[in-house]
């Protein structure tokens, strides 16, 4: 069946046969094959049809530059948009050609994907002759080297050639070089690893394909299988002091009429199929070239048994040595001739050369070589057009980056070997390493030839079948159309024609498009330039980019010390920042509304307990601590007495509220500041910013203690009983322990129990002695009810929580969540920063002028309160909205308008609903809203659109429950 597989040669394992299915056909291949090489061994070129025109298309190259050959893998796991040329064959592989688009799996991908950070003195990209020489030079000098290469084995271009180094086959030298590299502890050599992005400061991302080639356990005939615990693909995050791009070059086609038929292939590709895979890409061959390199393909294919009917050389002056080799093999060379068209539908059948028709089943094309400058360009390197090569090459030196070998435009093997060594030595010098003396590898003498001809296209024929970007079905006619429409830059032409935007990102079409556009515009191609190269160099699956940051690891979940208790109690969660907070604790059969009404009633009627440990906490110490806080809070902090608590508001310099919370004065020179749950990190950073950048003279130290202290508000008229029971040493009476004060107490600790796990040191340390557990109680309230906030060292949080719950049992203590907390605070018009504020709201807008000091000469934000904009009478102010229908719920975010009907647009907006709840205490719904001049509208009726209707709501004083504050002291 493998009719075009040669009996010997190539780097495949003929002793093992794989079965695979392509486009429904059962076929065979061998380990070492790509899907493309296995198909070609069966004489199959055509993989599918093109995306727009439906023209048959086939394999056109041997690696990632192939603009055709897109396939969909179905087995072992569906994956779209892969290239037949880069998929390694495995047993049981099932694939089909696709016209441009594939399909994602409809079941989750169970494969693992991960990432690794790596550091190197020198990163070498490409393990061809240039890269291997460079890596060896650096490794021998003692540098830490990372060498990555996208193929299954090292060698690069040499894998598809018959070159010789040091008098033997080049691949023997490759084997010796990789063996030597493997002996260095600080060399990381990764094959099947594509450097796909090159960023700032020597940062390169590379994708390693780790397990696909091993096959799956159900489809393996012998040897290793893909171990399920290993990641399938890995993104290497490499930080290198110096990056050496030795990525080689891509062969470039020439555009001519009907240049897209299956059986038309890059000349170097055919040579690779022959030497690496032992496959003849065709039996009757025509070669069309503008340079010497394709002669090797003609000669090698002829030697392997193909009939080479002609080498069509666009140059009048042909290379004598190569022509001689052709003549010896009976290959006619047509000098100064062009291919002007082709025949065949499913496969090329003939080539037209200046009126002559030459039958064939394979047309090899070479228009020269484009250095693979992508990774140089991605890092910001500018490119320069080289008229001799007809290609863009690195145009400048850049710190920490160099380009060598084929990627720098070096054409022959000896030059590449020398260039790799030279580039590595240049880099090493800058890194402080001294290269060691060692013999340089010697390549076989280069065959002298003729300069290349730069030829973008053959103009004869129909421009509409002269394909520039085969994947996009974009032709010379499309470029002409773009220019006709006024496009004058290559970036515009690219976007107008879509050339270069497919999976291959224009590896073959990009420079052609520049060249052809330049020709049509009558401008030099160097002036027109090329489009920008952007990562990724080749497509990368999102799964690989996500790596292990998926599922529960997608975003960290922060939990409090009492989390397990909440879980056991059946809490329903609310995400607050990264925190998991109980939203409510439903009883059997309860929905959120029922649970929250029950929790609210329990708190206002008895006692409830909340896990408030997520509140941010900052320890502020130092002789100037009071002065420091006085400058940051809008209200007076310096006068706060030790033992007392004050609610404080923090504003930005623009006068807008950024955070709020309570401040406890622990000592003359020490405070404990509470922040909102979501604002903790930002507030600490804000405080440090002022301290370090504006007031370095202040002797103040800031330390986060958010997780040090667990915080449990015990709330409701019976809270005094519960606290009095648990802390009998504390006089909980209102007289002894008034509102906005705090008291310290202790509870006895137990060092048995979990403490058995206390580590004992081999170094002779002793475990800590028993001692009492300090507890800090604070009379603060976020509900208007009598409340005691219990703060305890988080080591003992669970035990204290359980003790509070146990002591509260006879009072019917009810654990409640954030939803109930929100209802209770909204009934008292306590704002939530970030919900009732949005960065445009001042304390005055919130009705909290009382929290803004008139005495302090300075605090952050003070000056802004005098700006005209902050004095406007029509500023939005926080008010309550009471729907006339007591059962109607206003969705948060609803707009507030005058009403009672909707005027013609633009409709004047009065404001919006910021918080909305059902109140158990009021037995009705209510909302908080920011409304223009809201306080002057109290008592008025305004309107809110809800579900297509305009509903009347009364503007009310923001505090809707216990406005006189009678419940605060129990």
């Amino acid at each position, binding site marked *: 069946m493998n009719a075009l597989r040669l009996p010997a040669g190539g780097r495949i394992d003929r002793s093992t046969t794989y079965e695979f299915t392509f486009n429904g056909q059962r076929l065979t291949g061998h380990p070492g094959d790509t899907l493309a090489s296995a198909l070609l061994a069966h004489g199959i070129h055509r993989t599918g049809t093109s995306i727009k025109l439906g023209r048959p298309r086939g394999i056109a190259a041997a690696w990632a530059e192939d603009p055709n050959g897109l396939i969909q893998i179905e087995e072992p796991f569906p994956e779209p948009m892969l290239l037949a040329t880069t998929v390694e064959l495995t047993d049981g592989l099932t694939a089909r050609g696709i016209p441009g688009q594939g399909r994602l799996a409809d079941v989750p991908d169970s494969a693992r994907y991960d990432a690794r950070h790596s550091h190197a003195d020198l990163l070498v990209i490409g393990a061809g002759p240039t890269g291997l020489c460079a890596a060896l030079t650096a490794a021998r000098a003692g540098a830490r080297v990372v060498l990555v290469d996208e193929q299954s084995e090292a060698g690069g271009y040499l894998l598809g050639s018959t070159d010789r180094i040091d008098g033997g086959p080049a691949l023997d030298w490759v084997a010796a070089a990789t063996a030597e590299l493997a002996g260095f502890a600080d060399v990381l050599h990764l094959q099947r690893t594509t450097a796909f992005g090159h960023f*700032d400061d020597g940062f390169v991302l590379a994708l390693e394909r780790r397990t696909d080639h091993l096959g799956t356990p159900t489809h393996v005939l012998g040897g290793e299988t893909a171990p399920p615990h290993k990641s399938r693909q890995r993104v290497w995050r490499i*930080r290198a002091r110096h990056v050496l791009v030795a990525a080689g070059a891509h062969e470039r086609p020439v555009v001519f009429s009907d240049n897209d038929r299956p059986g038309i292939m890059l000349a170097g590709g055919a040579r690779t199929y022959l030497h690496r895979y032992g496959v003849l890409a065709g039996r009757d061959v025509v070669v069309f070239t503008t340079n010497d390199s394709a002669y090797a393909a003609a000669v090698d294919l002829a030697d392997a048994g193909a009939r080479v009917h002609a080498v069509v050389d666009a140059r009048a002056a042909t290379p004598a040595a190569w022509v001689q080799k052709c003549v010896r093999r009976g290959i006619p060379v047509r000098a100064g001739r062009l291919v002007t068209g082709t025949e065949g539908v499913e496969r090329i059948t003939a080539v037209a050369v200046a009126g002559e028709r030459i039958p064939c089943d394979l047309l090899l094309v070479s228009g020269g070589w484009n250095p693979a400058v992508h990774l140089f360009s991605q890092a910001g390197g500018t490119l320069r057009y080289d008229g001799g090569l007809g290609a863009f090459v690195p145009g400048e030196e850049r710190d920490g980056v160099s380009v060598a070998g084929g990627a720098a435009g070096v054409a022959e093997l000896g030059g590449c070997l020398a260039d790799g060594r030279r580039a590595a030595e240049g880099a090493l010098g800058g890194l402080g390493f001294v290269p060691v003396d060692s013999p340089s590898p010697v390549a076989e003498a280069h065959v002298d030839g003729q300069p290349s001809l730069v030829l973008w296209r053959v103009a004869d024929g129909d421009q509409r079948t002269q394909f520039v970007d085969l994947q996009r079905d974009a032709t010379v006619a499309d470029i002409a159309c773009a220019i006709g429409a006024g496009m004058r830059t290559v970036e515009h032409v690219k976007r107008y024609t879509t050339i270069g935007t497919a999976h291959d990102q224009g590896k073959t079409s990009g420079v052609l498009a520049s060249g052809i556009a330049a020709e049509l515009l009558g401008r030099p191609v160097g002036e027109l330039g090329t489009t920008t190269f952007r990562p990724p160099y080749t497509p990368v699956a999102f799964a690989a980019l996500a790596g292990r940051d998926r599922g529960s690891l997608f975003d960290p979940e922060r939990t409090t010390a009492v989390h397990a208790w909440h879980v056991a109690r059946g809490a329903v969660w609310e995400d607050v920042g990264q925190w998991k907070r109980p939203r409510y604790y439903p009883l059997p059969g309860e929905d959120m509304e029922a649970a929250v009404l029950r929790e609210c009633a329990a708190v206002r009627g008895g006692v409830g307990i909340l896990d408030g440990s997520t509140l941010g906490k900052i320890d502020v110490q130092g002789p100037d601590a009071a002065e420091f806080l006085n400058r940051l809070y809008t209200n007076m902090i310096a006068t706060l007495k030790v033992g007392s608590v004050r609610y404080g508001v923090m504003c930005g310099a623009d006068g807008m509220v950024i955070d709020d919370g309570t401040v406890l004065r622990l000592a003359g020179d020490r405070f404990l500041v509470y922040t909102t749950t979501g604002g903790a990190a930002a507030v600490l*950073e804000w405080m440090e910013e002022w301290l370090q950048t504006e007031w370095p003279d202040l002797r103040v130290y800031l330390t986060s203690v958010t997780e040090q202290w667990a915080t449990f508000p015990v709330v409701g008229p019976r809270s005094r009983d519960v606290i009095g029971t648990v802390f009998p040493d504390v006089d909980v009476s209102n007289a002894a322990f008034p509102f906005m004060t705090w008291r310290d107490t202790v509870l006895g600790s137990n060092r048995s129990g979990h403490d058995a796990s206390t580590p004992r040191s081999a170094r002779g340390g002793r475990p800590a002695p028993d001692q009492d557990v300090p507890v800090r109680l604070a009379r603060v309230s976020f509900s208007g009810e009598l409340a005691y906030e219990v703060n305890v060292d988080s080591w003992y949080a669970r035990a204290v929580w359980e003790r509070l719950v146990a002591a509260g049992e006879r009072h019917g203590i009810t654990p409640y969540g954030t939803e109930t907390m929100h209802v209770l605070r909204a009934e008292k018009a306590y704002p939530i920063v970030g919900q009732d504020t949005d960065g445009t709201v001042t304390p005055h807008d919130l009705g909290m002028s009382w929290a803004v000091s008139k005495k302090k000469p300075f605090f952050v934000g*003070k*000056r*802004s309160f005098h700006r005209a904009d902050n004095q406007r009478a029509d500023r939005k102010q926080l008010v309550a909205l009471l729907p006339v229908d007591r059962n109607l719920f206003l969705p948060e975010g609803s707009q507030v308008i005058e009403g009672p009907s909707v005027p013609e647009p633009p409709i004047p907006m009065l404001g919006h609903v910021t918080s909305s709840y059902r109140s158990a205490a009021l037995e009705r719904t209510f909302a908080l809203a920011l409304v223009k001049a809201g306080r002057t509208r109290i008592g008025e009726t305004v309107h809110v659109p809800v579900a297509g209707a305009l509903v009347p709501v009364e503007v009310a004083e923001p505090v809707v429950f216990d406005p006189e504050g009678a419940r605060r002291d129990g």
Partner: protein
Amino acid sequence: MQLITCPYCGPREEAEFHYGGQAHVPHPADPGSLSDEEWAHHLFFRDNPRGPFAERWVHALGCRRWFNAVRDTVSYRFHHIYRLDQARPETP
């Protein structure tokens, strides 16, 4: 992902740092003496040069220290990194 050299911890990934805007814009000593326009200018206006720009950064996930840097807004390259108690280096 740039590498930023914290003046204390040395080179670390950009992800460990937070940006703090233009450097050397001190808060006015007496904001009350400024006109509304002058105050608004302090609050809302910052330079936006093409080329070297003195900025503040904080090593937020490392030592939590603020520092200054002169960075090129075209190439992103850090030309100078200096502590808050050091003077701004001369730049071309």
